[in-house]
């Protein structure tokens, strides 16, 4: 006599220690094997696009900070670039170099949080403390420049709000020399750890065709084998003056496109960012950072789509202007929103504990998913 079975629905509700914020996953199980995962989002929908229609162009910058709150400098960078293209203005060289330096420091800080919390989800508590210790030093550098630790309002349309502190360059160089050996420490603790490798290799494999069809970008796409980075393929600001490499998933341990390769690319990107920062600190010219900031921003009627390489992927701003000081429509394409859509494909056939490993490896921030 055949036994009657049915699938069980498990709710990993909005309050959960490992979901990186308020995300609800409805998981359908047959025993312990996953049949489908349905993410429910919107628990942090803060109406950014409605605010953008009611404020003037410079007033929107603090709101862009709060979308991906782990990489605020990059959100402001992307927005300022989009509006500057719309207006057709050119910023001084010093401003470009400082933006690149801040952006790369922010990339390191964001990847440290990603790596630290990923270790915490898998069950390793020590890398979390080490990552946050090093991140505090980067936050000290930011605080020295603009006064804030997390949400800066520093990169304005046409320039910056403050120039660098006189000690900034020296402290930044000291940090780079201090931090290089720490990456090796992190590798010894987590990357080549036997337990970590067993939990993350051959889990959540993302084939390249699926990745392009789903619109995946950033370290997740590079983990599947495609060498695509907007800093090299569609360059913006002064990135074309620096010499750095784009790490791609090669199947060093496990398969190409699994959780371990996505994680390892983030570690390699930290090293590449250190290279960019060193070169930029050598080449930075003198100048005035506030000279090109327009007194009143009233762009011509038109539209622009501009994108930058956020630490999480491709961040795009689509701005439609109707000639008034307020934008007509600002649409943000956040990488985390796109990456969360692929969860169902990645999780099919794995066990419940692997859901957490996969969610940590695609590195989402709920502020950007819900805007």
């Amino acid at each position, binding site marked *: 006599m055949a036994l009657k079975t049915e699938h069980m629905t498990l709710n990993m509700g909005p309050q959960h220690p490992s979901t990186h914020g308020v995300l609800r996953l409805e998981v359908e199980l047959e025993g312990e094997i996953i049949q489908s995962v349905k993410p429910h*989002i*919107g628990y942090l*929908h803060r*109406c950014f*696009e*409605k605010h953008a229609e009611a404020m003037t162009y410079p007033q929107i910058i603090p709101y862009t900070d709060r979308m991906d709150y782990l990489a605020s400098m990059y959100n402001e960078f992307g927005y300022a670039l989009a509006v500057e293209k719309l207006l*057709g203005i050119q910023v001084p060289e010093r401003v470009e170099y400082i933006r690149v330096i801040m952006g790369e420091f922010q990339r390191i800080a964001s990847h440290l949080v990603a790596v630290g919390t990923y270790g915490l989800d898998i069950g390793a508590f020590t890398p979390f403390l080490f990552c946050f210790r090093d991140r505090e030093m980067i936050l000290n550098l930011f605080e020295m420049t603009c006064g804030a630790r997390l949400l800066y309002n520093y990169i304005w349309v046409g320039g910056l709000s403050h120039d660098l502190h006189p000690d900034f360059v020296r402290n930044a160089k000291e940090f780079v020399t201090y931090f290089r050996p720490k990456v090796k420490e992190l590798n010894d603790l987590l990357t080549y750890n036997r337990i970590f490798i067993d939990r993350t290799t051959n889990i959540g494999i993302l084939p390249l065709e*699926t990745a*392009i*069809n*789903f*619109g995946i970008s950033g370290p997740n796409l590079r983990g599947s084998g*495609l060498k*695509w980075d907007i800093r090299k*393929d569609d360059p913006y600001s002064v990135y074309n003056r620096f010499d750095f490499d784009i790490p791609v998933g090669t199947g060093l341990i496990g398969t190409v496109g699994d959780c371990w390769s996505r994680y390892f690319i983030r570690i390699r990107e930290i090293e590449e960012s250190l290279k960019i920062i060193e070169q930029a600190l050598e080449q930075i010219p003198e100048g005035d950072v506030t000279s090109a900031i327009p007194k009143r921003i009233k762009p011509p*009627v*038109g*539209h*622009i*789509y501009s*994108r930058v390489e956020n630490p999480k992927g*491709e961040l*795009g701003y*689509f701005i*439609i202007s109707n000639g008034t000081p307020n934008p*007509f*429509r600002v*649409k943000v*394409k956040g990488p985390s*929103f*796109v990456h*969360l*859509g*692929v969860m169902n494909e990645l999780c099919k056939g794995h066990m419940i504990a692997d859901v957490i490993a996969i969610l940590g490896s695609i590195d989402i921030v709920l502020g950007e998913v*819900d805007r």
Partner: protein
Amino acid sequence: MKNIQEIFSDLKEKFGDAVLELITTPPFESIITISPLQIADVCLFLRDNVELNFDSLVCLSGVDDANGKTIKKENGDNVIEGGTLSVYYHLESTNFRHKIILKVSAPREDPIVASVALIWRHADWHEREAYDLVGFKFLNHPDLRRILMPYDWEAGHPLRKDYKNPEFYMGMKVPY
């Protein structure tokens, strides 16, 4: 790598009336407008054609054009009647590196657009968001329901220009 003029003539040759016009707005990029119910066929051709190969949808945005007539009702609210709602598609090819922008306009009272969610799976959630916040109805979408607002939100579509906030939601006061 083809430019937008060549792509427009290829599309016009194949689809005729479904392809409406090429809007040029220097110094910004040009836009090709397509009729709302044929957009899925056009996109399938753009993805599968060997010379064009637009395998990546970069962005899909719903916009309230607010080009109708604004009427003031007795209770003081402004309501827009007539006019259109538009969807903008940004496409790119990872091999050839060319990019185009497509635009689809549907009437405000009955905004029905064909869905491209089965062509690029990327469009799935973007179309749900356009339905939730602006109010489009996408034909043949696999799972069209609200994504960011609560599932039982009855006060309409928030990103429309004439949207008005409700006073209470489930016992909680909404305005400040």
